């Protein structure tokens, strides 16, 4: 009988030993939760690397309020349950000051729920569902990336100028897919009531083979297709589009299609003439700050910065300035300081809207084209849509939050 007790107490103290924290004492502790395996990692690696670049620079100059910034990463493999487990572990065991991350919109919403309960700020760096700062927004969540509402408005502005009438929506069957699909369609209908929706196709996240889906969409002969794919399927979809000649037969719009992180892995195998919106090109606008940031990143990591790098970098900038403005490593003061704060970034000054904690990022709309200077396709005839023009109105958000 005594042997069973010593067995159980052995296990219990093994667990106790487990709860020691992995952080050094007296630093600003940041938990970065994101998906670092599979296709989405083309985007998330840049966020992490740029954030590290900025944090090292800040720590070199004595950190913030005399404290160094330290961060740990957790890989969620694009799975919501691993994301939640990592968030709980970082908050309760490592007691981090704030959380950052995740490309999977559903994960971002789940972690946002936890942060609301635990009163820990969550800095969203890549998931774009408008619900994050819209319907489900709260005091402790801040978004440093454009969201589906902004992308929808920008895309609608671009597509409404085009002659297409019969549209088809196809995309990943998860939070982001549905959010971007609806946002583009609703805004397009407002701007151009003549448009008509032929039908929709939703495939499972990470679908390996799109050929059967593409052939069934082609069968319905739409004028244009709105492709609502997220991080997991952008690149494979473009590959299948090129293989089946989808882009020659039917013009299609895909958010983030013109982004370097989507086009670089495909190299010259990427389809041309795809309409896409993006937040950042290292080759546009040709300003000195952008060039300096691009060179710094190239020097550090041997590859040009992609859109994720912009998000990672500006998150570090905002974090530093907000803590300095707050004057202390205190969550409530940090949140108040962050609201309405503006920081100058490689693409010009950016401000965090106080009401819904959404960063006002400008949107660049372009078309993919081969360019002799690069071994990957680039965006051409770029149209800049300023941040303010694409932000969802305060009334929309209040309606969405059901006030």
């Amino acid at each position, binding site marked *: 009988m005594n042997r069973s007790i010593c067995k159980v107490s052995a296990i219990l103290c093994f667990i106790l030993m487990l709860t020691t924290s992995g952080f050094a004492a007296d630093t600003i502790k940041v938990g970065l939760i994101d998906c670092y395996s599979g296709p989405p990692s083309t985007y998330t690696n840049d966020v992490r690397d740029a954030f590290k670049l900025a944090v090292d620079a800040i720590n070199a100059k004595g950190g913030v309020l005399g404290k160094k910034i330290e961060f740990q990463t957790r*890989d969620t493999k694009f799975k919501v349950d691993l994301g939640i487990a990592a968030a709980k572990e970082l908050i*309760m065991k490592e007691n981090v000051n704030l959380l950052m991350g995740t490309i999977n919109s559903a994960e971002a919403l789940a972690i946002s729920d936890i942060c609301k309960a635990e009163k820990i700020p969550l800095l969203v760096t890549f998931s774009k569902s408008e619900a994050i700062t819209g319907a489900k927004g709260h005091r402790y969540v801040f978004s440093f990336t454009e969201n589906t509402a902004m992308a929808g408005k920008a895309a609608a502005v671009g597509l409404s100028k085009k002659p297409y009438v019969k549209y088809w929506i196809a995309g990943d069957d998860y939070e982001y897919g549905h959010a971007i699909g609806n946002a583009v369609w609703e805004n397009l209908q407002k701007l151009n009531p003549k448009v008509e929706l032929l039908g929709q196709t939703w495939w499972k996240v990470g679908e390996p083979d799109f050929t059967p889906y593409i052939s069934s969409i082609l069968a319905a002969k739409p004028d244009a297709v709105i492709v609502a794919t997220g991080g997991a399927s952008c690149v494979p979809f473009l590959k299948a589009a090129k293989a089946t000649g989808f882009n020659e037969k039917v013009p299609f719009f895909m958010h983030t299609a013109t982004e370097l992180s989507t086009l670089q892995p495909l190299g010259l195998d990427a389809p041309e003439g795809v309409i896409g919106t993006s937040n950042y090109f290292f080759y546009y606008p040709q300003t000195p700050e952008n060039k300096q940031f691009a060179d710094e990143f190239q020097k550090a990591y041997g590859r040009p910065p992609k859109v994720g790098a912009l998000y990672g970098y500006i998150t570090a900038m905002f974090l530093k300035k907000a803590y300095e403005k707050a004057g202390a490593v205190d969550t409530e003061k940090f949140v108040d300081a962050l609201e309405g704060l503006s920081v100058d970034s490689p693409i010009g000054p950016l401000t965090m809207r106080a009401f819904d904690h959404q960063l006002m990022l400008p949107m660049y709309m372009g078309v993919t084209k081969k360019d002799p200077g690069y071994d990957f396709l680039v965006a051409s005839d770029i149209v800049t849509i300023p941040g303010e023009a694409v932000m969802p109105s305060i009334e929309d958000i209040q309606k969405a939050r059901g006030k």
Partner: protein
Amino acid sequence: MEPSSRHLSPSLLTPIVILLILACMPLVGSRFFIYLVSGILVTGLLATSLNLVLGFGGMYQFHHAVFYGTGAYCTALLLTKTSLPAWVAFVSAPIGAALLGLVIGAICVRLSKLYFGMLQISLGSLVWAIVYRWYSFTGGDDGIHGIPLPSWISGGKPAYYAVLLTVAVCFFLLHRIVESPFGRIFQAIRDNPVRCEAVGIPVQRHQLIGQVLAAAFAGVAGALFVVVEGSVFPDMLFWTLSLEILIMCLLGGWFRFWGPMVGAAIIVCLRTYVGSYTEYWTLILGVFLMLIIFFLPDGVLGLAERLTRRNATASST
């Protein structure tokens, strides 16, 4: 202590003492520790419910997680989609899982060993595919999170006590079943189904009842998962989780009642501890499993018993 030849089932005193230790643990443990131990208790119940049909029933239960997931989804859907009182949602978990166990069991129980396992995986995968793709109803790949739990069990400590109480009751029932005539005959079927049939036992009906019972307890574990985590995911129904629970039974020693519980504790701790230091947890779990299969065929408890028997005989000679 004279080493009894039958497999070591501790007298009633030991579990009560352990229960007391666990009961007063929240007063001293940190929040994360409470969350972790409740996770271990839920996983332990799940593994022990699998062991009812695997270790004691000899059935190749390759897809036990589908009952666990079904129970969790029953509770989650009833809590989020209907205004029924919370206890209805919690009671629906074992009932839903048991019903599924009846359906899948009735089809699979006609087959034996390998066929049984493979047929069960295909039926389970059908359930997974439906939950995974029914975006409008089950939230598909995103799962359901932020499930509204009643106030008396939401939050770290109350959830822990609710889990501890339910798991204790379930373990008591499971222990009684294993030691009951039903359990005794279940083990006989494991050893020799032909002989059982000849001795007058309707083997298939017995195995079906075993399946329904194991599914019901897995459903309870599913409901407790919702209490601890407040969210459900399609991955709970995926076959890789089933094999992970199988590993827990193997690690702990599946011919002993407390084996899977020990296995679950070790694996959950390892996953949390290793997970925070490296991304390559699955690699470590894989190597760990290989070592168990090679060097520890009858699990940690088997090893412990061999050691105690060796020094018991050594001391008594």
